[in-house]
Every structure is written in C-alpha cells, then in structure tokens.
C-alpha cells in the first residue's frame, strides 16, 4: 500500500524492472509446472481413450471412479474397495513414517543443537549428506539389507537364530522402513532450526522451579519448538503421501500406494481421467496439510518478529 501512496515514477520503474527480472523464472514455472496442472483438471472431466490418452467428451466418470466402480454386469455403482485400500495404506504409512521420523528425528536434532556451537554445523552436515545422495540408491540400500538373501537374513541364519529367511521385502513394513530412512533428514533439519533458537535460560528457569527433566521437555521445550515439529512433519508427510519409488521397489508392485495407483492409470489401466482425478485428490490432501501447517506455524512466527 505504501507504494501507492508514494507513487513516484522511480518506484514504479523499479517495480516494472523487478517484474521483468523475475519473468524468466515465473514463465518457466508457470509453463512447466502450474499450467500443466490446469490441464490435469480438464483431463479429469474427459472420457478415457481406448489406447490411453482421452476422447474429448465430457464425463464425470473419472471422478466417480475415484471412490466407486461400475459393476460390469448390472451397471450399478459399488465402493471401489481396491482404491480405498490404497488410500488407506498411503495415509497410514505416511502417518507412521511421520511418527517414526519424529521419534528418531527430535532427539537427534536436540543432540545436535546442544553440541558446542562450532560443531553444530558439522553434525548438521553429517545428517544432510545422505539426503543429497540419490533417492534410488538409498532405497536400493534398504533392499540390500532386508531382502531374503540380504545382509540381515544372512546374518540371522549364520548365527542360527532362524532357519528360513524372514520375508521382509514386498510388505508394508519394507515400505515403512524405506520411507522412514529416506525422509529422516527432512525431519531433523526444521526441528534443529527451531531448537537452535531455543533460549536455554527458560529451561534453566524451569529447573529452578523444581521441574523434572521430563516436565521441562514436555512443558517448555516441546511447546517452544512446535513450529519446527510441525514443519518437519509436513516436510515428511507430503512426499511420503505421494511416494512412488519406495512402494515400487520395496513393495514390489504388490503393495500399492497412491503414487503407484496414479502411475497404473497412465500405464496398464489406460484410464487417464481417473489418473488425473486421483492426482488432484492427492494434491487436495496435500493442500489441506499445508493450510493446517500455515495455521499452526504462522501466528507463533509473527509473534517472534514483533
């Protein structure tokens, strides 16, 4: 609003220059990320073509197929139990992944934040290296560990603890393990960012008032780093919900998640409108998660800047 008031020519020219400068980035993202999303909306209301792609005929079948399927014999609608199973698995595994990374990530972030200042960078760096390592390699590493001829089973058999290898691949457990491993750094970083700002004099005040260690943790530390906890949870939950590689490799195509169900519609199932509708459903869930995040995180942050 200040711009309107001062309204000087120099300011207007500055703003115009700034639009010009940012236009390449804006155009690329609009053309190759946002624009295509709008096309997905259109496609979700069309009719599937016989060999993939779509026919330009309006239909809401794509959307109703998200939850219902038409009986081939009597043409009645039933709940699409297969899809619901996949939805439920996606949500369940993503929430469990978030929980596990939280349980592992918070103490780790706390540990780093309480190191001497010059070592914190190094510890943080140690956490980020695996994150910059190829996602596929990390998923592959988990596979090496848990497959039937993998390290864990071989060792257990050699020590005579089991006779037959334990089947861990192609289970929900495998996917959960893989996602927890892959997304753990995403949890540590934002929690650390919050913990770094934590004023330990408040913690000391708590102890002076005879609080136990647990009480200090629960009543002082956790509430103060809540924005970090929420940010970390969002950062883990969103990619976990749309996970594609972990369920494909570790779930072996038997335990589908939403990402694979979408993939399937554009591959074998040849139902692009349903695939589009499923993608938009996923995006809607993610948007809701982001809105919740904005509500929980921002008031506190503004408070800090006051």
């Amino acid at each position, binding site marked *: 609003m*200040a*711009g309107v008031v001062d309204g000087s020519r120099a300011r207007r020219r500055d*703003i115009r220059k*700034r639009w*010009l*400068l*940012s236009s*390449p*980035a*804006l155009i*690329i*993202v609009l053309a*190759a*990320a*946002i624009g*295509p*999303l709008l096309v*997905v909306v259109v496609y979700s209301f069309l009719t599937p073509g016989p060999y993939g792609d779509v026919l330009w005929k309006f239909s809401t079948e794509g959307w109703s197929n998200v939850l219902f399927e038409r009986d081939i014999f009597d043409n009645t609608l039933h709940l699409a139990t297969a899809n619901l199973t996949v939805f439920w698995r996606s949500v369940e595994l993503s929430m469990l992944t978030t929980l596990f990374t939280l349980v*592992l990530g918070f*103490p*780790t972030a706390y*540990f*780093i934040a*309480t190191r001497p200042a010059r070592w914190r*960078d190094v510890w943080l*760096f140690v*956490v980020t290296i*695996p994150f*910059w390592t*190829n996602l*596929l*390699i*990390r*998923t*592959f*590493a*988990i596979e*090496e*560990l848990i497959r039937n*001829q993998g*390290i864990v089973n*071989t060792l257990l058999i050699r020590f005579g603890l089991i006779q037959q290898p334990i089947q861990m691949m192609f289970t929900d457990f495998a996917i959960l393990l893989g996602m927890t*491993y892959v997304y*753990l750094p995403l949890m540590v970083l934002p929690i650390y960012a919050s913990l770094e700002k934590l004023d330990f004099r408040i913690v000391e005040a708590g*102890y002076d008032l005879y609080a136990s260690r647990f009480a200090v943790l629960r009543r002082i530390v956790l509430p103060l780093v809540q924005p970090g906890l929420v940010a970390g949870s969002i950062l883990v939950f969103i*990619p976990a919900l*749309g996970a*594609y*590689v972990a369920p494909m*490799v570790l779930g072996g195509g038997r335990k589908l998640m*939403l990402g694979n169900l*979408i993939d399937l519609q*554009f591959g074998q199932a040849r139902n692009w409108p349903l*695939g589009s509708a499923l*993608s*938009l459903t*996923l*995006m809607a869930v*993610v948007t809701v998660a*982001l809105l919740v995040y904005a509500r929980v995180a921002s008031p506190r942050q503004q408070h800090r800047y006051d």
Partner: protein
Amino acid sequence: MTDRRTRFDIRRQPGFGSVAWLCFVVLYLPILIVVVYAFNAGRSVATWQGFSLRWFVSAWHNQLIVECSLRSLRIGSIAAVISTIAATMAALATTRTRPYPGLTLKYAIINQPLMVPEIVTAVALLIVFARVKIWTGYTGLTYLVIAHTAFCIPFAYLPIRARLENMDRVLETAAADLYASSWRVFRYVTFPRLWPGILAGLMLAFVISLDDVVITQFVKSAGQDTLSTYMLGQLRRGVTPEVNAISTIFVLISIIVVVVFFIVNRKRSEQ
C-alpha cells in the same frame, strides 16, 4: 564427559544422545554396505569374496550405463545453469525492497514445485508433453530439460535469496552515486558478493536434477533413460553388483558437491 554429571547439565535429556547416535548409524550403514559390496569380487551382496574392481570395469564397459550417465550429466548441467540464471534474476527482483503488489504471488509461483507431490507434476507434464509431441513430432531431450529446469528453480532460488537478504545496499548505492550503470553495479558490486550463493544454488540444482526419478520416468521418450531411471529398471528386474558400482560413483559425486557447498558456506559465515 563424565565429570559433567557432577554438575547439573540443563541441556541434557536422558537417552537423546543414544537415539542420535543410532540415527547417525542408521543413516550411514545402508549406504556404506552398498559401497563396500561394490568392491566385492563375487556376485552375492551378502557374502564377501575378496576385493575387486571388476564391477566398476564392467559398468564402464556397459554401453547403456555410459550413455545414460552422459545423458544425466547433460540434462543436469543444462537445467542447472538455466535454472540458476533464472533464479538469480528472480532473487534480485524479490529481495531488498519494500513489499510491492504481486511479491507474495511471485514467491508462491517460484516455490510451487516444492508444494506439489512430484508424482502430480510428473503426470501433468506427461499429459501436456504427450500432446506437444504429437503436434510437433519432436521427441528430443528438450522436454526433460524444461521439466528439470522448472523443478530446479526453487532449489537454486533458496540459497541465492538467503545470501541476498544478508547483503545491504550500501555498496550498490555508492556505485550508483558514482554513475555506474545498473549492469556495471551488478557486474562489479553485487555479483562478486553474491557468487557463493549462486554457486550453492547451481550445485543444489545439479544434484536435484541428477537425483530425479519420478518426473524423468514420466516425461522421457523411449530410449531416453537417465542413470536414475535406468537404475529403477534394474531394481525392478533384480540387481547385479554393477548397480553397486554406479551407486558408489553417484554417492561420491553427491558427497563432493555437498562438501564443496559446505566449505564455501563456512567461509562465508566466517567472513
């Protein structure tokens, strides 16, 4: 460490250190196993049969692997350079100013690729590019480059913007007062101070592009596998230690890039 217990340490929480150490082990152990077994003489990934470089040699002689690696590097470097240039310009346009109409919108657009699950962007690009491929008949690498550039922009933008926000305008104003053109101000004043941020953005963008699987998998035409999508195919079919060998090289590249990034950043904070 033990004598600290005699004094009450307000920062200590019981068990946190152990969990942290467990985390560090868990983060590194699997990668370490992959790397170690890349040097295994035998085929098995569970029994050690002596040191050997044979899987590196066989990966090197695998025409497909070499082709895919070169393709990955080509796409990665082009996408990283374009996205970093665009991101630098965008960062200059969105920092060090009073809020102006559309500023928040710009942030939202630039960071959009971070907010949407990758699979959704991948599907969207598949749909659009399938049309464009039919219309134009062109099926080259440009589609992959465009897609990679778009999702690399926010990653390149973050460190550049962070760096710019810590730079005051005093020197730029001084240069402008001395009648330097805005290009010369950028070239001789802003750029030399900004370049660690630009370098960081460039490297992040490169690593992100190199790592991408999902979007590449959906956008690529036949015969356009990158190393990541090639490995995905291998993992679905069953693995040979060649995959360990390539992974080891990739891990090395990532670590080198990130270490350089870390050192550059450290120097910056010491300045």
